[in-house]
């Protein structure tokens, strides 16, 4: 077990990014060559409103150490209102997770615009730190999940 202790923990973070704002922001972070932890794997969706609770839960139960949903700032949604619905759905998942005494801090919702490359970098860095503190998601190894 000592080995496990010293073994470096590399978080696995699933990042649902909306095509119009946050994915563009992430690209901008890239073109600006900002240093960002590689722990986040971006998954492009057209709008954050596409992300249903079950997708988030599946990622979470499948052992994702963190799940990030990032979309256009309120009012900027490419589809007018999508991100408002997304926020409600996310709130429910987070409440349920919290209510069951699971680690709600592994779920995060952020607004990142297409011009906020730096902000995207900061969000990922922050989240990565949070997750590193939390350590690996125990669910990953849980046989009865």
């Amino acid at each position, binding site marked *: 077990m000592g080995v496990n202790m010293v073994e470096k923990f590399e978080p696995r973070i699933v990042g649902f990014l909306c095509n119009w704002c946050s994915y*563009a922001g992430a*690209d901008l972070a890239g073109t600006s060559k900002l240093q960002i932890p590689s722990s986040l*794997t971006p998954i492009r969706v057209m709008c954050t*409103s596409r992300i*249903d609770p079950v997708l988030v839960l599946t*990622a979470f139960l499948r052992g994702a150490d963190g799940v990030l949903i990032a979309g256009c700032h309120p009012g900027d949604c490419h589809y007018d209102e*999508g991100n408002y*619905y997304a926020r409600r759905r996310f709130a429910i998942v987070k409440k349920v997770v919290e209510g069951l005494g699971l680690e709600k801090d592994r779920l995060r919702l952020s607004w990142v615009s297409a011009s906020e490359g730096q902000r995207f970098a900061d969000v990922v860095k922050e989240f990565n730190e949070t997750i590193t503190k939390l350590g690996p998601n125990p669910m990953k190894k849980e046989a009865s999940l």
Partner: protein
Amino acid sequence: MKIGVYICECGPNIAEKVDIDEVIKAVKPLDNVAVVERFKLLCSQDGKQFLADQIKKHELTHLVVAACSPREHQQTFMDVCEQEGLNPYLFQLANIREQCAWITDDKKEATKKAIRLTKAAVARVQYHTPLEKQQIESNPDVLVIGGGIAGIQASLQLAGPERTIHLVEKTSSLGGLSQYYEKTFPDMKPCASFIKGLIETVKNNPHINVYTNTEIEEILGFFGNFEITVKQTTTPEATAAFEVGAVVVATGATPFNPEHISKYGYQKIENVITALDFEQMNLSGKITLKNGKPPKSVAIIHCVGREEKGYCSQICCMYSIKFIRYLQKKVPSTKITNFYTDLCIPGKSQQHFYEQSLGNHVDFIRMSDLQITKQSDKIQITYSNEKDASKKLSVDMVILSPVLEPTQGLSSIIESTRISQGEKGFLTEEHEKIAPVSTSTEGVFIAGCSHGPKSIEETMSQAEAVTGHILTSLIPGQKIEPEVKVSHISESFCIGCKTCLNVCCYGAITFDDLKKVSVVNEVICRGCGNCVAACPSGAITLKHFTHNQVYHEVKEAVQ
């Protein structure tokens, strides 16, 4: 299934940051992966040719490219697929440059992430299905609601041998408000006569059907295929029905009625008239008081109703200044006083027009708390200005320049087209900046003062802008090609809870009352996927972003 996976070195950009051989090693053994190769630069001509040859050579059924952001070259590679007869939606691009190679200097990290991203793309692409562009018949004809200058201009520019325009006007005559204006600002060009001319051209145009005294009863259908029913206001049982591909709402605006604001004394004090009264008086040829004499002094009150309505109508200052010109021409000796709060004369020619209108008989006073009362045979105006409160001025005639309000009675149009109305009652554009004349309902456009108060100039531009949109999207003889990545509702799983109807802000979902299920209209759907996440039964799938496709991406992301 034969998946080809190709990793782009992007010169040093990826090659130096990612150990591509490691990626190849990790991807090769995956099920259904027929071939994995690296290439110097896949977006180059050679690169595209290379991919094309590979697709042929290995008879690939699916293609995965690990390179730059989809925002850069997704289209490029989809085109290659298309050329090779591979459905472009059987392709997936893994972004291992912007969001991998470029954000870390740690090669091991980058390589691991590149492997995750590529595996995710491979996992995802296996669940892709070919998507085909649909083509939908459409009707090039257009319904124009409102026979004001906006409606007239739109009709004239749209009408043609292959396109019939149905111009519906609520009142008995075409022309709208501006038919009462003798001249326009800022260059005092003739207006009323100009409009008369336009109306004649409309009447003589064989491709424009004019319906006066007519209202909209119902608008059914969607972009390309609307079914319209109109009814006569004079004899309501008399209705007509026709089909069009697009709808233009040009219902205009009406001047705010100051009658109920006592301080203006309108309808109570003689010779207190509104701008429209004055325009008509001026058009009739004579500017006189009730007693037939010409006014020796006139006050023009700006911003009437602005406080009540909560917005600036942007043209009141300008037409008030135009009134100075009218007066200077017809009753030269008159003393003219303009009472204003903020002089709103935006635009390159407006200030010049204002300056040209000044003269020894003309005053501009910035006022507040104004009050109009009767004073024997004259009218007294009490007001405060910068320096002192309750100053007085008595005049023969007062012209009130009221704000513009949206025309009332649009509910049937708004409901049946599902366009929305802002808090001030004006119609809401699709996007304040980049889509000002289209609405959230595809194929329904707005022009002129129904959209917001504006000058004839801007009204014309909007009317022409609308024709621009219609002429580009509704071409006679051409079918409409709706978005491919749209939602689809499974009839057998839908329970008819209508949640999707509630969350769709494009009105793309309708309810089939017989089957008690929701149905997506692919012509209107924009493919955001909101309804998918909203559906409790999981009866809705968004093409190219299906649960399975996303799930398998997620699954690999946590490895």
